[in-house]
């Protein structure tokens, strides 16, 4: 029998399912319910494309605003909250160990006055203030430096360091001033009028508790000294008296130093022209898009660098699994 005849005979012998199998399958098919929604690429694209477009648009349109905010140096801390904090700190009886650090928001053109809390009266407090100002031009930087020095001297203070640098279109200056503590508020207010405030920080540290402790120690030592002096003077007693006297003198010198240091507040002033704003003027309307594309490119390179080997491993694993499965299947089906 040829292969052709063989095939013809085999084809003629079609098998039909018995009635009971047919009935069983009909019963199974009768249980069919509405199919659940299928995932298709078309459906996925309908959702993905608008979302991607919205994200891209958000990046393009929101990025320049964000830069603007950075340029103006807006800080999140609200002055109101800072005020509340310092109102509490202003009562020395309630808070003997006073320590405060306040960062104030950059003021806008409408609010030129800087925030400077009142140092608590009757207590020794170390007062540090830092002020960042923006001025329009390099000439204004020089003028601001001169005026800041004049303000410091007029209030009985003096400069510790002055660094100024100006170029054709930009300039910066950093000044550290010592101002008598009772005039620090006035100094900060007058300095803040030299430009637009972009940042401000005030640090208050109470030193009174330490001084009180030292005074108590001195009193105790003086009492001991008086007792020793009342005793008959021997070489040992004399040595003790000398040591105690030196110790008391040291402590008194330390207290005096602390009081002297705290008499002056340190005010750091940073004056600068808006350099970044000049840069920003060169950015075109599609700058945000360019930035977004650059980040997408970087992400794509990372995905390729990390994804390609992973993909290769997955592919090799898949091949190995398929080969093993085929071999097992062939072994299973090779039995007669």
């Amino acid at each position: 029998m040829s292969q052709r005849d063989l095939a013809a005979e085999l084809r003629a012998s079609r098998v039909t399912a018995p009635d009971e199998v047919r009935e069983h399958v009909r019963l199974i098919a009768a249980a069919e319910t509405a199919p659940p929604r299928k995932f298709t690429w078309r459906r996925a694209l309908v959702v993905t494309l608008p979302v991607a477009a919205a994200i891209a648009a958000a990046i393009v349109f929101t990025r320049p605003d964000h830069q603007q905010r950075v340029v103006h140096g807006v800080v999140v801390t609200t002055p109101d909250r800072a005020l509340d904090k310092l109102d509490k700190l202003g009562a020395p009886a309630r808070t003997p160990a006073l320590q405060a650090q306040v960062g104030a928001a950059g003021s806008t053109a409408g609010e030129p006055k800087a925030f400077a809390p009142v140092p608590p009266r009757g207590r020794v407090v170390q007062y540090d203030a830092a002020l960042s100002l923006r001025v329009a031009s390099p000439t204004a930087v020089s003028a601001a430096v001169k005026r800041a020095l004049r303000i410091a001297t007029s209030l009985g203070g003096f400069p510790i360091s002055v660094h100024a640098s100006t170029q054709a279109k930009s300039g910066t200056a950093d000044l550290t001033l010592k101002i008598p503590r009772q005039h620090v508020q006035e100094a900060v207010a007058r300095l803040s009028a030299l430009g637009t405030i972009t940042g401000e920080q005030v640090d208050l540290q109470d030193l009174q508790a330490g001084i009180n402790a030292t005074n108590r120690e001195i009193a105790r030592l003086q009492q001991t000294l008086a007792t020793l002096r009342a005793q008959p003077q021997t070489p040992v007693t004399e040595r003790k008296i000398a040591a105690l006297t030196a110790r008391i003198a040291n402590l008194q010198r330390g207290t005096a130093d602390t009081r002297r240091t705290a008499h002056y507040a340190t005010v750091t002033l940073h004056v600068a022209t808006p350099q970044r704003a000049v840069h920003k003027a060169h950015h075109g309307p599609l700058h945000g898009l360019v930035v977004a594309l650059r980040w997408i490119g970087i992400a794509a390179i990372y995905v390729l660098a990390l994804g390609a080997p992973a993909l290769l491993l997955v592919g090799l694993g898949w091949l190995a699994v398929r080969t093993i499965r085929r071999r097992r299947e062939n072994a299973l089906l090779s039995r007669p």
Partner: protein
Amino acid sequence: MTFAQAAEEHLDDVYGYLAWFTGDRAAADDLAGETFERALRLWHRFDPERGSARTWLFQVARTTALDHFRSERRRTRREQLAAVPERYEERFAEGLAADLQAALGALNAGEREVVALRIVLDMDANSAARVLGISPTNVTTRLNRALKKLEEALSVAA
């Protein structure tokens, strides 16, 4: 096309394929029911753009039959009946000559299924390849080998 329509239309083909593949009508009866139960569960995955319902049902039937073969092999091993395998009378289709029936019994399951798909059920090489999970060239090679083996068995019998 609904599942009920596909089942009604292709039941005989699926049953025939299972009968040829297993060489056991009783097993084919059970496996047909099992195949359609499984197909109903997986019907939401059927995509007409990727292939016909017939091809898809054959794929499900094949998976069901392979599971059956595996469980049979495990059962045989467990019962240690490998040395004396349980023989059933192989009857692939009505109207086949006795010598052809005997020659078909000499084929293994893998060869029988390719004969069933390509010749008895008249499936094209690509669809058969999709059912078997191999390339169309492999299908043709496997079919030629099976037919040659049949031919030899028939000539020996003659």
